[in-house]
């Protein structure tokens, strides 16, 4: 199975994401923002960082990158797509996911180990977890507060589309402690914290992030 990892100008976490894909058991395929070809990948990861310098709004310019037009089409046809941190922001700007990510409520850049609860293990990227499982992975962002209108929030909650929630105090002002959401089909997932930095206890707060990368193999086997 081939998992594409996109590099935009300003992306930071593409190497870690690619390594997590490999440790998870799939083949990592590098994709460039200017590519007009998805290189026959079965799934795509939009990694964290500061694509296009976060100019205008986080993810606002990346949305119009040539490779994103292909990703948007493929995602609408059911291809699994995971956006982490800046990737989550790109997915919201692309309207593949509802809502938006805004400045952390306390204005501080956050960088810490964060406990989250997996609240939907039925998606392409969360099936390796138990429902309600708690994992500790890094949270590092400036614009991490998930915002949407009341109607959208009610829809996300009513349809079980919140896939992960922060445990304990709200770190960034996200509505309903939302750390990650999915689309109606469950193939597109956006997640603010970083599972790709938690695949090895030597370098991360845990190895529990690996579940996101093994889940995608389950999705393909089905």
């Amino acid at each position, binding site marked *: 199975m081939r998992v594409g990892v996109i590099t935009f100008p300003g992306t930071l976490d593409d190497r870690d994401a690619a390594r997590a894909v490999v440790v998870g058991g799939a083949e990592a395929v590098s994709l460039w923002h200017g590519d007009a070809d998805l290189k026959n990948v079965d799934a795509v990861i939009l990694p964290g960082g500061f694509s296009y310098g976060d100019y*205008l709004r986080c993810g606002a310019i990346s949305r*119009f990158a040539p490779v994103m037009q292909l990703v948007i089409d493929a995602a609408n046809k059911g291809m699994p797509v995971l956006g982490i941190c800046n990737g989550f922001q790109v997915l919201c700007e692309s309207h593949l996911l*509802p809502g*938006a990510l*805004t*400045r952390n409520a306390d*204005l501080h850049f956050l960088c810490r180990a964060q406990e989250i609860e997996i609240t939907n293990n039925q998606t392409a990227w969360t099936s390796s977890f138990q429902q309600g499982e708690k994992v500790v992975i890094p949270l590092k962002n400036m614009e991490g507060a998930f915002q949407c*209108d009341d109607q959208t929030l009610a829809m996300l909650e009513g349809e079980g589309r919140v896939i992960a929630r922060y445990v304990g105090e709200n770190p960034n*002002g996200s509505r309903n402690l939302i750390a990650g959401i999915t689309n109606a089909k469950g193939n597109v997932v956006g997640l603010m914290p970083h599972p790709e930095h938690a695949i090895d206890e030597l370098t991360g707060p845990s190895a529990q992030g690996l579940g996101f990368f093994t889940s995608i193999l389950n999705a393909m086997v089905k």
Partner: protein
Amino acid sequence: MAKIVVDVMLKPEILDPQGNAVASALPRLGFTFATSVRQGKRFEIEIDGEPTPAQLAEVEKAAEVLLSNPVIENYVVRVEK
């Protein structure tokens, strides 16, 4: 040459931590007039000649698609004299 200005503001219901930080900095400097501050973005777009209705419609479209995120922001397009 004309200048078209697009002002983009967070919607009233969206928390604006930057505006709040400015609002709390003002009284520390002795400025006590503000009950609230909201921070936004301003785009100044120059075009040749006076804008036609069709050009203004294009700017409106660009404001909706690129310059603002309608999920969290409102925008206003005006021609500056």
